[in-house]
């Protein structure tokens, strides 16, 4: 029973309930075992390219993971440092300070972060309903925008209690940078003459 049955052409297909532990098992199994992963890749590629076309070795597909450009991240970091002193704040060891001192600095950081968010992003909740209210998701809902948790069984519509409204950025307004600008200097050193 604890050995996954190979998918067969004679019509016995695993149910959804069966497929969930299967998928989790496969995920960790593939992650841990390179040989298993290689065999899986064979099976999967075989499914994509039918055996009839197996004469040509399948070209490695383009990577599905994209490499983010560091520029925008560096820019945001620079803004958070400039307006909220975030790097300074997080970089400090809190153990020597009283909560009142930390609180005073946190005010600066809070105000600054709020300014950066307000000026550079337009944020709206993903769901307009109040948190705690009952929400029903119809079939075909956007799984990227709503994460269902808890007793996730059966078929949509899913009814549940809204725990967090989520946030969606509707507009990003990052400053434009000069061609030669070195974004890695997120805060220049200051030398007073």
């Amino acid at each position, binding site marked *: 029973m604890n050995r996954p049955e190979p998918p067969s052409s004679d019509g016995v297909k695993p149910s959804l309930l069966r497929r969930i532990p299967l998928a989790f098992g496969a995920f960790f199994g593939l992650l841990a075992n390179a040989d298993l992963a290689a065999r899986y890749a064979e099976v999967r590629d075989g499914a994509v390219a039918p055996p009839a076309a197996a004469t040509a070795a399948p070209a490695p597909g383009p990577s599905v993971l994209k490499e983010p450009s560091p520029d925008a991240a560096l820019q945001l970091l620079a803004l958070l440092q400039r307006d909220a002193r975030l790097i300074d704040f997080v970089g400090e060891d809190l153990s020597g300070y009283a909560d009142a001192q930390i609180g005073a*600095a946190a005010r600066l950081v809070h105000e600054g972060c709020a300014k950066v968010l307000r000026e550079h992003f337009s944020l709206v909740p993903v769901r307009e309903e109040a948190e705690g209210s009952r929400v029903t998701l119809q079939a075909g809902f956007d799984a990227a925008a709503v994460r269902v948790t808890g007793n996730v069984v059966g078929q949509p519509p899913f009814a549940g209690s809204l725990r967090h409204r989520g946030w969606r950025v509707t507009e990003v307004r990052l400053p434009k940078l000069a061609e030669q600008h070195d974004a890695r200097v997120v805060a220049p050193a200051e030398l007073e003459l």
Partner: protein
Amino acid sequence: MSAPRFAIGIDLGTTHSALAYVDIAGSDGEATVHGTLPIPQLTAPGTVESMPLLPSFLYLPHADEMAAGDLVLPWPADDQHAVGELARSRGATTPIRLVSSAKSWLCHPGVDRRASILPHDAPPEVARVSPLDASTHYLEHVRNAWDHAHPEAPFAQQDVTVTIPASFDPAARELTVEAAKTAGCSSLTLLEEPQSALYSWIEASGGGWRKQVQPGDIILVIDVGGGTSDFSLIAVLERDGNLELHRVAVGEHILLGGDNMDLALAHGVARKLAAAGTTLDAWQLRALTYACRSAKERLLGDADGSAGTTAQPIVVPSRGSKLIGGSIRTELTADEVGATIVDGFFPQVEAAARPVSRVRAGLAQLGLPYAQDAAVTRHLAAFLGRQLGAVAELEGFGARIGNGAQGASFLHPTAVLFNGGVFKSALLADRTLATVNGWLAAEGAAPARLLGGADLDLAVARGAAYYGYVRHGHGVRIRGGTAFAYYVGVESSMPAVPGIEPPVEALCVAPFGMEEGTEAELPALELGLVVGEPVHFRFFASSVRRQDSVGTLIGAWAPDELQELAPICATLPPEGRSAGEVVPVRLHARVTEAGTLELEAVPRSGGERWKIEFDVRGERQQDA
């Protein structure tokens, strides 16, 4: 040139500039298609962001201070200056390279406004700029921003209105026009800021303004910006069944604004810290000023929800990277804000109160002539008192002065319009209105209504754009013409008395209320000009003498009746005459379409005319 598609309004402010526009073709009557232009500007080296306002600051960086490309803008610009937010933030740490308040310098009669004098405390190696250049830089930046956003409708082909304080003298007006021309305005008009605020209110009402004012109303516009306070009175008349607006009076030039208030608070808090043993350096004081501004806004109830709190914490960040260990925490209490801002700048004074002026110490002072009395309400009381007779000659208003308000000691406004960021605080607006209404109640008059709904930051730019549209015949226009009568000083022909300066009489050359595009008649009195030599005349303006016509000679006047401006200067070219010859001329005044005053010297015979220049060189500089 094709007909302009946009009416562009530029608020060239002391601390911020903004651009608004009305799409002339797309608008229909009082339903206008309008907007404001986000202005791309450097906010950090090599970083360009669009913001609704352009801080009116110019930074002159050291040659090694910026890396290559740090001053790059969306449009090609080769000049090595920074304008806007970067200039302001850089300048806060290096004030010797920062040009600020250029507009206040532009109307400072004590300095040469074409000379490179700013930043005025810069060391010799900094290549300074003139107040005129600085204003030109701001206008050029705004123009480039427009051309970048609207390549299909070049700035030079649009109708441009630039706003100025109502109290600007003729020389400052002419310099503003010169700056705008240099920056590429071809069709240009000047508009007084308080009028612009009222235009914006009219536009925003979408036609509803006719229900909110009645004939007989006198609207007091109180405009307290970042650096200046400006007052105007606008009367509402009915003529042929239509409502007409007449600007009947403007106030003096008062260098007093929101920035002074923030600074006053910061110094108060700094004193409190000093008493507890913590002294702040200049950098920390600036950070404290910034923190005080936000705390003040919260305490005065212009941020949401937190009105009614008694104290706001203030944290002055450390300059180094030890944020928690190095920051200084204190607080600003509602009582301190009340004492410093509400009672310091808006005290509840009597209508008879007048600004206190201290005797200035020495002549060495070359800084800006800041208002000596910080109380806006006292300046306001003085303005209304001085303008008691402002509507006496306007039809339908005689009764107001004669019967209803017999014995009135000041002009009674019936409505108030606020403008300027200071009045984002409802508390300050309420206090000002309550003070004015207290004066009215004391003389048995009805309280003034508040005309609400203005956008306090952008109203001036919006109103200016709307005015450009109105000038195309699409709405009500505020009338009024020049808000001053102008005079030249002539030495009276009295026998000389040893030890006594011959008394000066004032000859009226331009009466009150000259409309744009009109000319004054020639006065009968002739003045002698020496050929080939610059001849200076003393020059005066009056905001109260409405009845004088061209040629009126005044022998004596009350101190605040006539205000002496910088002198005017005429130079007759020696062609066809021998040098040293004295030519009798008469002075002829004209108000241009743009709204500037032009004076010409007209000789008795022949069709020649010579332009008379406003002296913008400043006496003190000449002496130096």
